[in-house]
């Protein structure tokens, strides 16, 4: 059997490479919590990255369970944090943005579906205290009924 020509292999690989370069974003921080977002359809697209700050919450992923337990936690940038540190984080993020953007920042809450509301309410209370009132509950797209099996 004649050998299959592999002359076009680099072309295929370059195409895949360009796809990934275009369709993805450099990850800011490694996710240390489980983050299976819930589903919703009344959604709007988040603003550009420089107008958004991210707060992650959920149960620690399997690698961190032994060290940090199984209860849901908040993750800010690359570290776990407590509820009281949320306020300081928001103020720091706000200070690091350009003057014009400081009042239009949105806080994106990327929370695992299985988290209980107690933690979320505490986070929202902290956000109210620092006047970060524009929030976005980040979700995947789909029908609300998928949230309740």
């Amino acid at each position, binding site marked *: 059997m004649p050998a299959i020509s*592999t002359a076009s*292999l*680099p072309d295929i*690989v*370059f195409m*895949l*490479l360009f796809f*990934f*370069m275009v*369709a*993805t*974003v*450099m*990850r800011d921080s490694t996710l240390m919590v489980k983050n299976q*977002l*819930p*589903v*919703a*359809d*009344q*959604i*709007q*697209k*988040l603003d*550009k990255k420089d107008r958004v700050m991210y707060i992650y919450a959920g149960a620690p992923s399997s690698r961190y369970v032994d060290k940090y337990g199984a209860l849901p936690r908040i993750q800010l940038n690359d570290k776990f944090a407590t509820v009281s540190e949320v306020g300081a984080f928001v103020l720091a993020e706000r200070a690091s943005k350009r003057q014009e953007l400081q009042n239009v920042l*949105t806080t*994106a*809450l*990327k*929370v*695992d*579906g*299985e*988290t*209980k*509301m*107690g933690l*979320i*309410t505490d986070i*929202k209370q902290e*956000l*109210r*205290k620092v*006047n*970060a*009132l*524009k*929030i*976005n*509950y*980040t*979700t*995947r*797209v789909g029908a*609300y*009924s998928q*949230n*309740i099996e």
Partner: protein
Amino acid sequence: MADIAFLLLIFFLVTTTIETDSGINRKLPPMEEIEDPPIIKQKNIFTVVVNKNNQLLVEEELTDIDDLRRLAVEFLDNGGGEGEEACDFCLGARDPKSSDNPDKAIISLKNDRETSYKVYIAVQNELVAAYNVLRDREFLRLFPNERMNFVEANKKYTDPRTSPEEKERLKPKLDEVKLMFPQKLSEAEPSKTN
């Protein structure tokens, strides 16, 4: 040549993510306490309570989540008011025991600390959907030339690719419909059952 390409590909596969960049936008109420809360009639408040077993209590009755959107629309669209408080664009039942006017109608949401977040999102989704259903209807009725409903017009308005002239044109229309059905969604302190 292919080796270099493979290396770069593996690099990108490992360091990037396909971002989920959409969700439900909400605005939190500011911290300051209102000195004297305005007197609100009981019928103008639509209570939704979610307990730790993720069950819904709508207006004191156990309800299925699938009914929530319809019940919220019925409440908001009721228009049971008379005279000054009458609502001329409401198509609801005009029940005197339900809300007077959409701009007086308040939806109050209360959940337990142990309620699951995804159920909370499902409830938020349905309540926002109820507002959007009514806002869509009114936008289409008032501005048939736009040939889109409220949600589509809003999406166009927030899209960075739309021209400033079009945004200028859309803004007053969007604001008018938003005033007809304002999102008065209040969230109470969650209860803590030990």
